[in-house]
């Protein structure tokens, strides 16, 4: 057990060191991810402003959602005021910072195609555990640089969080949903990468996944805006745990038994994708041809 922990720590440490080699590119890449946040905030501002100016259109209804606390001018979209929307959007960005896995699926498929995966097959190390530790290192490196700009953005936008800080129990549930979002995102994308054992190239599949995730995870808009039957559909999919669910937990849109059930379902999805990825890996390795000399 101690030896396994030491091995994990070394993989983590080396993964972190590797991430920090190209510091210029790394810092720039991390900071550039904040640009979309600014543009999205302005976009929602403009949308709400337009609604405000249209006579008789101070509320645009969607499929669900409760009434908001009133934002800029009091206009609402599906029950969301401007404040609600921006608070949601910023929280969904935090969710994405945990659940998005840049380069995981494409990198995994590339390793299969060019034969680099061989080194993991000959060494006494489990490839999936190795990749998980390495991804934790990627995330830690990212957070170490991103935490400051994230904090700044939240500080400047603190006025949009009209309800203030949630209770500690909600914060604990939020932390759990974020960590589980990371695990779900990892095993989901790993499964797509492992399809590389059959398809060799997974970029189109990955594009489809990204597209679905963009709309159905809550990255683009809060999912409770969706009308039925779409709302029912996204509740059946695991994608909502990647962005919407943690944000909804923080904003206390999911509470009580619904929150507990949501966390259990998220855990069940993780278990499903752990088993699915493991089966894919074992089968994939069996049919692997050891490409690339």
């Amino acid at each position, binding site marked *: 057990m101690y030896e396994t922990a030491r*091995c994990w720590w070394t993989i983590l440490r080396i993964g972190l060191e*590797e991430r920090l080699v190209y510091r210029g590119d790394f810092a720039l890449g991390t900071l550039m991810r904040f640009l979309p946040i600014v543009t999205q905030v302005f976009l929602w501002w403009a949308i709400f402003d337009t609604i405000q100016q249209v006579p008789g259109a101070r509320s645009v209804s969607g499929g669900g959602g409760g009434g908001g606390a009133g934002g800029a001018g009091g206009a609402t979209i599906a029950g969301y005021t401007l404040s609600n929307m921006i608070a949601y959007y910023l929280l969904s960005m935090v969710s994405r910072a945990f659940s998005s896995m840049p380069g995981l699926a494409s990198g995994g498929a590339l390793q299969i195609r060019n*034969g*680099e995966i061989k080194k993991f097959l000959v060494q006494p*190390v489990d490839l999936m555990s190795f990749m998980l530790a390495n991804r934790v290192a990627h995330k830690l490196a990212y957070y170490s640089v991103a935490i400051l700009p994230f904090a700044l953005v939240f500080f400047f936008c603190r006025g949009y969080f009209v309800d203030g800080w949630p209770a500690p129990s909600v914060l604990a549930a939020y932390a759990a949903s974020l960590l589980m979002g990371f695990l779900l995102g990892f095993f989901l994308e790993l499964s797509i990468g492992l399809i590389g054992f059959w398809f060799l190239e997974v970029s189109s599949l990955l594009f489809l996944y990204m597209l679905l995730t963009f709309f159905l995870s809550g990255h683009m808009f809060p999912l409770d805006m969706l009308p039925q039957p779409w709302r029912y559909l996204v509740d059946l999919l695991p994608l909502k745990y990647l962005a919407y669910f943690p944000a909804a937990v923080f904003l206390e849109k999911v509470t009580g038994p619904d929150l507990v059930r949501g966390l259990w379902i998220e855990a069940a999805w993780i278990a499903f994708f752990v088993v699915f990825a493991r089966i894919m890996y074992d089968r994939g390795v069996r049919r*692997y041809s050891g490409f690339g*000399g």
Partner: protein
Amino acid sequence: MAIIELQGLAKSYRVYQKQEGLLASFRGLLRRQYQEIHAVRCVDLTVQQGEFVAFLGPNGAGKTTTLKLLSGVISPSGGGARVMGHVPWRRENSYRRRFALVMGQKNQLWWDLPAQESFRLHQQIYRIAPESFQRTLDELTDLLNVGSLVRQPVRELSLGERMKMELIAAMLHSPDVLFLDEPTIGLDVVAQHKIQQFLKFYQQQRKITILLTSHYMKDVAALCQRVVIIAEGHIQYDGSLVGIIDRFSGEKVVTLQFAEDQAIDSLDQYGTVLDAQPPKVRLRIGRSEVPKVLAAILNRFTIDDIAVEDPPLEDVIAKAFLQVDDPAGLESHPDRLA
């Protein structure tokens, strides 16, 4: 004691056969034609502990596929194998801790970090005790003379230096069996020589078992007591290096240094003239003819110096590769067939 045992080991691949042209590419989206490639067909082989065996064969002969099978990277389509009592493709950790695979064309170290970091990771992955790790690392860096380079990012090392680091990484856990797939490919003569010396010394010291594939005959001549020639997935020869020369080359190369001031002509009657730069001439003569031909030449000319040698190993091996394509050639030497 047999360390490696292969019985009827076979591996086939299904390979997509794409016709030329864009239209064929679109047709390939709907229906594809596959061809069954038999990379390894029914290979039987036993390797004893401490042997240094060369796997030779033309490109695509099945050498690397056999090494991949033995290191558990791929699973066979038939037959069986045991290495140190383990079935390789089960990839048990107890097996993976006892062997190493070094591929000359594949980098196993972390590209952007110093080799030291990859070594440290290997220490943890292979559960090497700290004192044993340091002792082995010092010994290996000393032997390969790369102590000052372990803190340099791998991407900034030369090809030869990188290969030395790959070898160190592979040896840190003191494997009992080592698979080397063209470890000296692309290296200059000096680097090749150093790696050969290292492998020879290390193998003799530790009595480890090594299977080597290489296209450099100097590697083979310097290191291997036993040579296995594989072609078209079959073992075509299994024996000593000297045996290959006996088996595949019935000729000798005779170099004659003629004394000055004499006409050198009509040498064709004695053998094939390989090179004529009077007063030095090289002839290829049938092995059994050598005494008779030399006597005739000495009788006719005044000779200052004579050298009788085996043809270059590369030539013999090339001939061997050509001959194994010709079953008739093999049928005439059934005793040599594995």
